[in-house]
């Protein structure tokens, strides 16, 4: 039996996962998203990654996020790739900064606007 804390929303339900034969018996979640999270967390944990990226010629960093969650074990390789990126201004919120980040099929997108000086 595994106990884990759901991170989908700020409530943080304490969820219990029992592996019975080939199914997972999930209890403790207050909403269906929690069940999905618990299942993924046992089988293939994923996280949303947020970071910053350099913008050429601008003194302000561009905040970015992965458009969906990515495998937890790929977080640091994703950071390595993010560190190499330099983006041109202007940048619009939602703009794709890098497609298919470290082969996850998930894009890295801008979360703020940066205008040209």
């Amino acid at each position, binding site marked *: 039996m595994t106990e884990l804390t759901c991170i989908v929303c700020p409530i943080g339900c304490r969820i219990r996962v029992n592996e019975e034969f080939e199914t997972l018996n999930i209890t403790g979640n207050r909403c269906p998203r929690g069940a999905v999270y618990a299942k993924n967390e046992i089988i293939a944990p994923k996280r949303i990654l947020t970071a910053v990226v*350099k913008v050429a010629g601008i003194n302000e960093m561009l905040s970015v996020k992965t458009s969906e969650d990515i495998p937890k074990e790929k977080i640091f390789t994703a950071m390595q790739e993010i560190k*190499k990126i*330099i*983006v041109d201004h202007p940048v619009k919120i939602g*703009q*794709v900064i890098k*497609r298919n980040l470290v082969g996850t099929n998930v894009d890295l997108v801008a979360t703020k606007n940066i205008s040209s000086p």
Partner: protein
Amino acid sequence: MYLPQVDVLIIGAGIVGAALARELSRYELEVLLIDKEADVSFGTSKANSGIVHSGIHDQPGTLKAMLSVKGCKLYPEMAAQLGFLYKQNGALVVARSTDEMGALEELCHNGHANGVNNIDLLTKEDLGKLESNLAQDLAGGVLVPSGGIVVPFDLVFALTENAIANGVKLMVNTEAQMISIGKEGFLVNTNRGAIRTKTIVNAAGLYGGKVAAMIGDDSIMIYPRKGEEYLLDRKLEGLVYRTVFPLPSKVSKGILVIPTVDGNIMLGPTAQRVKNHDSSTTISGWNQIYSEVKTLVPTLNPTDLITAFAGLRAVANTGDFIVSPSPISTRFINAVGIESPGLTAAPAMAKYITDLIRETGLSLKLKREFNPERSIVRMRDLSQTEQAAMIRKDPAYARIVCRCEMVSEGEIRDALHRGATTLDGVKLRTRSGMGRCQGGFCTPKIIRIISEELGLAPDEITKKGLGSQLLYGWLRDETGSCIREEEELHA
């Protein structure tokens, strides 16, 4: 910077060195002031309590007594000329019980013996009328109106800037390492080159003994005595108006309640002999201070603390200042062991040392173009009309960087032009970062301004000089693959 020959080399740009530099700048002399730290005042002086003592405490007949009484009298005119923060708020020495009243009277006699004439003996009722927040159970006190308060580093900056404006040269990050004596003077080796000078004044504070030993003078023994100070929020301004002293102990004037010129309440200092230049604040130091000041002003509350610091007094083993030519060479003048009342004494000590310099045979001719005045912009002290005028001159004065102390970008840049090269140098010249958020909001902005004005990379910007870097570099390398994506993701 290599100067072939100077008349006077002052080693140490603390309060003594700075006051002397300003005094000597009145004369046609080549004067060089050096300090091993990144900025002036960065040794003991910046942690000084900032009290201009009246002179009642000192033992009659000592240099301390003579120079403090004289020095105290010089402050009002000096403050008007140099534009440093100063208030003649008066000193209040209180007796906690009737047992102490005898000692209080002795203090009065001592003061009279030192030439301090204006000393008022106060009853319990008088005390209550003067200061409403004092403890109700104090037995009585003594008011000395000549006492005052300054911001010690602000004073050192003012003296140094005026000295430089009048021709004195300053070299910071410059440490004297070796001195050889020649016929015409000295050759001083520093980490930044050699200096020839006719006269040396050793104002090296905690390192006074070390510098004296460089010419073979082993008579000077300086040991550090630590004093911790605790600062309370400026909203307590007016809690006390005068500086409140208990009766002095054998070692120090006691733990005080100090209303700073800027409006904070400062509590301290302790007096503790330490090893290894340990300047850490301690729980026991706070406990000692808090338990003592509560008996003077009972409403003091630790929830109002905003910061604490400690300084190291440079104490000589003689019990008095050592201001005299060295037995090894009469052109090497020691001005060391300048513990309390060193700050008070400094302007008078500067004149005293000038006389000693004259006695070495150096000709002292007054400069005709000496300008005794100096002023800086402090936006928060200006009226709104004056502020508007400054803003018209330079819009940088309208961009507020430190919101707790109302300091503008214009003043930050001025500080960098006035000689600051570090975050503390900017902070101490402008008060930015000294308010209730203690730099939480303004530090990133100031770092940016420092890097622009001085052309420094992130890891070159320091808090107080070499080794105190604030940052380790950029998060992202400047080189990288440049990616431009035209597509947008529809949310």
